[in-house]
């Protein structure tokens, strides 16, 4: 990406006598890291706020001792990273960290990649000068995945920081340890910063922030990733492998459309079985934060598959008589291109209800805006935006990446946010003080977009009809308000001693009732908030904000008026100085939407690729012909950030691939990755060979993975948007098609560290009224589900998941995301 480097103003700083370029306003530590200069630091996380727990990053800037993680660079700043005093402090800090640290490196999972080990060696700590009685700290399991060994914890607070500033769950906090007091003599004999750091360290330990023994969080495991020592690990991974035994294979998370970069870490299954197994997933936690599905749903491979020639012959026959291929978004760009080529050569229909609505929405948007793709992504939002708006995304469930961005903007960019969604959420308002949530009726997404136009649009640019339409919602009402007025009162005071009377002017506050004219915005009221109160809050929210971003999601694609919504989004982008990002529903939905020419209906003999069908190609191990799962194949995926990213095979696969079928049918390159360079340039792809694609991050955090799609621009007029019908909302019992936070597809469900069941999720009150098990009746069928209470849901709308393809939930919802249902207790 080249534009990231040219925008910022570069200034010159000096570190240890050498000149370097740095971005203005950057922290010294980040500037040093970007220039490959090493400054030790444990507690700092690149995209989070400085914690100042470890104090190792002490440097001297213009002769003054500062912490590199929280002081910013300025033109001509002279930085010295090592002075005798700083070295003394650092050595003392590391000695303190080693006080009472259990000498169990031999069994510790972190040994070999432990920052405490590394810094102890780096700072050459070979003796100990401090001591304090130890406190017994128990090992606890915080959740179904989190394992905390408090004895190993050095309370750097990276876990609490990442959970608050990035993930948004704020599920962890520091609590009192109840340890011994420091020996008073240390205060005078120890280096100052080391003493202060120890004093804080000795008093605290990490615990769930809800006061119980268990975290009520999304179980993303990012706290595990950032832990510098062995204190936090995955329950499943504890004591199963040493870091150095594992081979790291760079890949892309296969489930959500965020397309995070991950590393599958593999080694042989056991002594008897030498075939490789994935033990865990790790990430570059300074630059990318994973969600629970990316980290824990890794063992979905199709094991022990051999080339079954008979099944292959059947598959070829099936393809010859098939009329439709039904598939989902868990598919690489290359495979999508194979299916598209099949369609072009043999006239097969391609049916994909998961992606089709998004594809249409994207097409309408492109038509209206003149841009083939939306303009921003989560990384840009986090780096630049200070006002984010989310419409039609169940932020916790649909797109963890955007949830992190939404939260990060509040925490780091002093931002504000608006969240429009029919299902009330208790977590989103906790992201920041300037977050306003609109819990509106299902079906009013258009009203939300009109309100955004009203609040943010440059009124000059808006078409006249739209302006009048928006103004038609406004009415002036008279309101009586109480106002404090200072009045001057003249009093006659008699001086008691002299008897003289004097006139004294006094200022007296008085409350006066006053009638004023208030503009009431009907749109705000329609969306469920009080107009004047919101207007006041909004004035505060918008002050000093410069960069605005809009996130739109699946609710809009599956809306009866999706076309109008797409035009409204385009209109907002054109008139509001606002960037837009769309959430592709799941995995590689964007790639499929761009590459495949999808059909609305399936007909005739259907081949299901990881989906229902008359002949099933399946990577789940239950079909008529086995296929490789996402962790067994190489290829590219197109993620939400419009980036074509390479993924690699972590595990062996011995069976046939889709490419073998396509080669037999119509001829194809020898390998699947032979298709990479053939991806359609007309859709923004590039003719680049798979093996030349980069896959990593540079030290300054620039994403260097694959390539960005080209956005094709053409001139267009301001789009014509339609009015909406206020009455067209969903009343009565409503079901919302939405998966629990770590579930996306059959593949996540197959993984053994994902525990969220296929059930009906509802707010606690609603769940209690429904009982344990219900039958949800749709127009076209019904489904039996257990009821699970989710404390983060508010309101009466219930969530019905769609991650099991066998349940055919997409068809029950009949092309919509909200549907009227009857819920019967069973």
């Amino acid at each position, binding site marked *: 990406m080249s534009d990231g480097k040219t925008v910022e103003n570069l200034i010159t700083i000096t570190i240890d006598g050498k000149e370097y370029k740095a971005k203005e306003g950057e922290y010294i530590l980040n500037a040093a890291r970007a220039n490959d200069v090493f400054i030790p630091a444990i507690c700092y996380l690149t995209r989070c706020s400085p914690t100042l727990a470890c104090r190792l990053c002490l440097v001297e800037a213009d002769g003054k001792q500062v912490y590199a993680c929280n002081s910013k660079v300025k033109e001509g700043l002279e930085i010295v990273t090592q002075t005798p005093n700083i070295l003394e402090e650092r050595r003392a800090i590391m000695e303190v960290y080693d006080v009472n640290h259990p000498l169990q490196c031999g069994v510790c999972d972190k040994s070999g990649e432990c920052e405490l080990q590394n810094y102890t060696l780096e700072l050459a700590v070979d003796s100990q000068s401090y*001591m304090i009685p130890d406190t017994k700290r128990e090992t606890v399991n915080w959740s179904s995945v989190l394992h905390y060994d408090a004895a190993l914890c050095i309370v750097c607070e990276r876990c609490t920081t990442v959970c608050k500033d990035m993930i948004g769950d704020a599920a962890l906090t520091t609590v009192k340890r109840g340890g011994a007091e420091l020996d008073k003599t240390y205060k005078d004999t120890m280096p100052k910063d080391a003493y202060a750091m120890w004093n804080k360290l000795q008093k605290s330990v990490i615990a769930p922030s809800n006061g119980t023994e268990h975290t009520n969080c999304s179980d993303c495991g990012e706290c595990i990733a950032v832990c510098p020592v062995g204190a936090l690990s995955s329950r499943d991974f504890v004591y199963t492998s*040493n870091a150095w035994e594992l081979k790291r294979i760079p890949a892309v998370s296969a489930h959500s459309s965020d397309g995070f970069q991950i590393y599958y870490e593999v080694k042989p299954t056991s002594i008897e079985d030498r075939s490789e197994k994935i033990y865990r997933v790790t990430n570059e936690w300074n630059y990318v934060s994973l969600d629970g599905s990316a980290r824990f749903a890794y063992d979905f491979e199709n094991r022990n598959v051999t080339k079954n020639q008979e099944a292959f012959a059947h598959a070829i026959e099936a393809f010859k008589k098939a009329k439709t291929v039904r598939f989902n978004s868990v598919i690489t760009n290359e495979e999508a291109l194979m299916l598209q080529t099949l369609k072009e050569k043999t006239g097969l229909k391609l049916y994909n209800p998961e992606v089709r609505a998004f594809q249409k929405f994207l097409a309408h948007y492109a038509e209206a805006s003149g841009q083939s793709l939306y303009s921003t992504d989560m990384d840009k939002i986090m780096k630049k935006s200070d006002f984010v708006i989310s419409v039609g995304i169940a932020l916790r469930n649909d797109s963890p990446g955007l949830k992190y961005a939404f939260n990060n903007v509040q925490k780091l960019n002093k931002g504000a946010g608006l969240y429009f969604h029919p299902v009330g959420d208790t977590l989103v308002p906790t992201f920041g003080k300037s977050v306003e949530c609109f819990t509106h009726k299902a079906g009013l997404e258009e009203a939300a977009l009109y309100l955004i136009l009203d609040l943010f649009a440059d009124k000059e640019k808006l078409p006249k009809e739209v302006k009048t339409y928006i103004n038609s919602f406004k009415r002036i009402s008279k309101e009586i308000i109480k106002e404090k007025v200072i009045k001057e009162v003249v009093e006659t005071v008699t001086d008691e001693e002299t008897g003289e009377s004097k006139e004294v002017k006094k200022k007296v506050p008085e409350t006066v009732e006053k009638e004023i004219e208030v503009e009431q915005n009907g749109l705000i009221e329609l969306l469920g908030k009080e107009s004047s109160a919101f207007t006041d809050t909004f004035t505060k929210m918008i002050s000093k904000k410069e960069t605005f971003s809009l996130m739109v999601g699946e609710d809009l694609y599956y809306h009866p008026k999706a076309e109008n919504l797409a035009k409204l989004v385009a209109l907002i982008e054109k008139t509001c100085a606002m960037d837009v990002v769309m959430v592709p529903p799941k995995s590689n939905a964007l790639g499929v939407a761009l590459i495949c020419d999808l059909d609305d209906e399936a007909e005739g003999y259907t081949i299901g690729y990881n989906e229902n069908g008359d002949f099933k190609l399946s990577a789940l191990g239950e079909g008529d012909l086995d296929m490789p799962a996402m962790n067994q194949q190489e290829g590219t995926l197109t993620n939400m950030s419009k980036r074509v990213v390479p993924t690699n095979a972590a595990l062996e696969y011995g069976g046939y691939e889709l490419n073998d079928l396509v080669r037999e049918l119509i001829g194809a390159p020898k390998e699947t990755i032979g298709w990479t360079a053939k991806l359609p340039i007309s859709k923004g792809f590039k003719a680049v060979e798979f093996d030349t694609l980069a896959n990593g991050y540079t030290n300054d955090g620039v994403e260097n993975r694959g390539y960005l799609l080209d956005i094709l621009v053409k001139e267009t007029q301001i789009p014509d948007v339609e009015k909406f019908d206020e009455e067209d909302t969903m009343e009565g019992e409503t079901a919302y098609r939405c998966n629990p936070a770590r579930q996306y597809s059959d593949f996540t469900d197959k993984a053994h560290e994902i525990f969220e069941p296929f059930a009906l999720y509802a707010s606690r009150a609603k769940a209690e009224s429904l009982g344990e098990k219900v039958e949800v009746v749709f127009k076209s069928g019904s489904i039996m589900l257990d009821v699970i209470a989710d404390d983060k849901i508010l309101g009466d709308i219930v969530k019905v998941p769609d991650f099991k393809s066998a349940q055919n939930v997409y068809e029950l919802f009949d092309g919509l995301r909200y549907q009227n249902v009857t819920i019967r207790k069973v």
Partner: protein
Amino acid sequence: MGLEQFKNRNIGTQTYRMLDLGQTPTRGSDKFKQVVKRTFKGELFVGLWVTLRAMINSLFRGELHTVKYPLEKLPISPRYRAIHDMLRLLESGHYRCIGCGLCEKICIANCISMNTRYDENQRKEVSEYTINFGRCIFCGYCAEVCPELAIVHGSRYENASEQRASFSLFEDMLTPIDKLSLQEEYDGFGAVTPYADDHIKKTPLAY
């Protein structure tokens, strides 16, 4: 130095004495006489007596000079590196191995393999451990790197087997629990040196 000079160089005074071998017989009858004379002189019995004397000494006087292998074996140095032993803690009888994996990592023949797990007592348990003796080159790195002196080289050097590769499991190498009292502290390659105490700085403890 030329060749002539080389041949005539001074090589010191020679004190060779020529053996008096007599005349080499040239006639057939003389040759025959020499054979008979040498055959019946009795020198053969001089030689046989040496053997006989040794036999009598060993059989009847108990002056044996060889070891009765395999009934008897010579003591070997503690630094000898033969088949590995897995030692137990003398106090508790629990095996010493903590499952750190260092032996597996350092093994240059790549013959050690282990599996570990989180056990019910919140400890790391070695669930499986094997050494492939077909590959082991008995270098001793595993014993040297072991932080617990759990894996050491024992004295079992008879490792001929019917198969090219013979594996040994943890249990085979582990000191049998009933022979714990016979377990000897390892003194060989990787053991703590006698003067180790002089070289460590003690960590202060607040107890």
